[in-house]
């Protein structure tokens, strides 16, 4: 069988992940704010007798800046083997997209141009002559729509021919002094698979990573001399390349101005981006989301709990048999976990997907900037923090978008207070369901206060200097139900395949521990914590098990206290339990990623300190409220 490796490359928000999903089926989550892909994502597809491996790379604007995303993409492009590249460009903004296309052509990488958002361009009155573009650039140009799968078959055909395609395409002509410098450096470059002209350009643009291709130290010194004599050479190269990109875009497009939709988009932005109305609307939206989650989540949870309880009683297992008792515990854990976590996790991902696809999430992020700045968080920290609302583990990886390890670690420390979907399920499904709306809201408010105090203390220790903010805002779009559902399913997959079996295992483990009397032995050394929190000692078992997998917390609480939690705990105890279960680095998976991203000592230290802080905070509030 023939094997192909194809890279997907393009600017942020250009539709790379959507295209990957259209090519191989739903595999990756698509977000319309930059930085959500900080690693390459690989997926394979068999076509006839060929196995194609597609590699989705982080979005970059050019092969020139030195961001973390750019380094990952550049490594995939130049250091790892590949048979070709699909360069995805935005049809609504061709001249901006062509800049990188010209760089890829300079590198003589076999490429197919996938033209995305063609319908959007038409709506804006932009007509594109694809045949003319193909002739001008010397590469195949395929208009696509990954969401409706338009043009995907044609694209696959073009990919299969890519290996035999000519690598020489359009070449940018620079000013004489630049061309002279290119020729001078080109003659002093070692033998390599990359074109010498491309390497010379990278050297002239000041990319020190390309010095290794020069024949000797003396040549490097010569190159530095050229840069000294012409300090603006990198800028000149950039301006010429952009000018050429604009020229090509102009040659192949016809523009008929259509203002109607643009006006509507601007009107919405005038409200959402207003210095007063923007934050206010964002706050109202968050409140509405809270209400929807609580109302519909509680509704579904009630139905599911009723169903699972009647299902369990219909099994009719004799409780006196040890195996039956263990099985019942396993099934109780499974049923409770599914009833508590599933409605909130699913609803949350559905709402998140909707907000992303409409284009609202990026606006909300901008409106929370001032707040983040106040916490001493760098501007780009919103990306991992927003992802943290879904799951802390990928959010830890997403801290890589920040420029320094110090910033990354500082941001990661806030995951202790950003509730992931599992922690939201605890707040909604345990505190909200058994204690009421006010208690659930109080837990969110407590998380906020605990986070503010944490920030106040830690920013004095770490002295973080904020990165400047630069964020692309996606246009408002009608969300496609199929797309939102597919995205929610991808995010939910781990819950279904990993968490649900774990819930059953957790329940069985608790059953075994309980039957053989190990639970009391396990709880005994932790008794002071239970006393401090004002909780019954058995409630520590769900807190401990919850660290293995957060969704176990709610299920285990029902295992140890029964389904009538409001009879076993007072409202204050339900609240305290909610706070203790949600503050801190949430689970062993998140800890594992933290260890991978930072040093072992730092990751362990952060986890222990954040959990201890959560317990201290919860106990303190319990004491203060009890006092009154």
């Amino acid at each position, binding site marked *: 069988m023939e094997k192909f490796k194809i890279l997907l490359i393009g600017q942020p928000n250009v539709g790379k992940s959507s295209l990957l999903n259209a090519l191989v089926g739903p595999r990756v989550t698509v977000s319309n704010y930059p930085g959500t892909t900080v690693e390459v994502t690989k997926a394979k597809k068999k076509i006839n007798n060929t196995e194609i491996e597609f590699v989705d790379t982080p979005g970059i604007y*050019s092969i020139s800046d030195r961001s973390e995303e750019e380094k990952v993409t550049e490594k995939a492009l130049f250091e790892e083997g590949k048979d070709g590249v699909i360069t995805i460009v935005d049809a609504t903004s061709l001249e*901006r997209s062509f800049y990188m296309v010209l760089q890829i052509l300079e590198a003589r990488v076999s490429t197919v141009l996938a033209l995305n958002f063609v319908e959007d361009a038409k709506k804006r009155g932009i007509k594109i002559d694809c045949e003319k573009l193909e002739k001008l650039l010397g590469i195949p140009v395929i208009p696509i729509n990954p969401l409706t799968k338009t043009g995907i078959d044609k694209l696959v055909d073009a990919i299969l021919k890519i290996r035999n395609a000519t690598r020489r395409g359009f070449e940018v002509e620079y000013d004489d002094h630049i061309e002279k410098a290119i020729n001078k450096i080109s003659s002093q470059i070692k033998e390599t698979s990359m074109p010498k002209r491309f390497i010379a350009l990278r050297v002239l643009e000041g990319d020190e990573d390309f010095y290794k291709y020069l024949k000797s130290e003396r040549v490097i010194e010569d190159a530095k001399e050229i840069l000294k004599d012409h300090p603006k050479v990198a800028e000149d190269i950039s301006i010429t390349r952009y000018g050429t990109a604009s020229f090509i875009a102009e040659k192949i497009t016809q523009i008929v101005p259509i203002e109607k939709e643009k006006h509507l988009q601007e009107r919405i932005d005038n409200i959402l*981006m207003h210095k007063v109305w923007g934050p206010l609307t964002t706050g109202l939206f968050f409140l509405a989301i809270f209400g929807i989650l609580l109302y519909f989540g509680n509704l579904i949870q009630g139905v599911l709990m009723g169903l699972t309880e009647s299902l369990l009683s219909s099994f009719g297992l004799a409780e006196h048999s040890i195996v039956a008792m263990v099985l019942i515990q396993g099934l109780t854990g499974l049923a409770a976990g599914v009833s508590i976590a599933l409605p909130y996790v699913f609803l949350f991902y559905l709402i998140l997907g909707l907000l992303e696809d409409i284009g609202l999430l990026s606006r909300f992020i*901008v409106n929370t900037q*001032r707040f983040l700045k106040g916490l001493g968080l760098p*501007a780009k920290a919103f990306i991992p923090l927003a992802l943290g609302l879904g799951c802390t583990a990928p959010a830890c990886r997403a801290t890589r978008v920040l420029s320094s390890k110090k910033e990354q670690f500082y941001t990661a420390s806030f995951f202790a207070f950003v509730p992931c979907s599992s922690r939201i399920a605890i707040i909604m499904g345990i505190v909200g369901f058994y204690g009421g709306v006010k208690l659930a809201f109080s837990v969110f408010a407590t998380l906020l206060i605990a986070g503010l105090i944490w920030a106040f203390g830690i920013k004095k220790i770490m002295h973080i200097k904020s990165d400047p*903010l*630069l964020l692309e805002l996606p246009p408002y779009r009608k969300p496609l139900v199929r797309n939102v559902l597919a995205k929610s399913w991808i995010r939910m997959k781990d819950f279904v395949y990993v968490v649900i079996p774990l819930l059953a295992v957790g329940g069985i483990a608790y059953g075994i521990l309980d039957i053989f009397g190990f639970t009391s032995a396990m709880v005994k050394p932790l008794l002071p914590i239970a006393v401090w929190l004002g909780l019954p000692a058995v409630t520590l078992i769900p807190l401990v098990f919850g660290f293995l997998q957060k969704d176990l917390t709610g299920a285990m609480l029902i295992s140890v206290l029964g389904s009538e939690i409001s009879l076993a705990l007072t409202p204050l105890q339900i609240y305290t339990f909610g706070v203790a279960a949600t503050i801190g680095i949430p689970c062993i998976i998140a800890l594992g990623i933290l260890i991978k991203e930072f040093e072992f000592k730092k990751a362990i230290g952060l986890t222990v300190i954040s959990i201890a802080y959560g317990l201290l905070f919860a106990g303190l509030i319990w004491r203060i409220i009890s006092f009154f």
Partner: protein
Amino acid sequence: MGIYPGEKIRITNKIPDGVIIEIKNKKFVLGKDIAKEIEVLEYGKI
């Protein structure tokens, strides 16, 4: 970085810590710190 030298920028909104700009159908939020770094060659209506 997302903005190429020589591009025409239109400021569409001002936000507390920066501006929202439009470049060829794309909208960006620029923080104050980064907006100050932009060298404006020519002002005008586009």
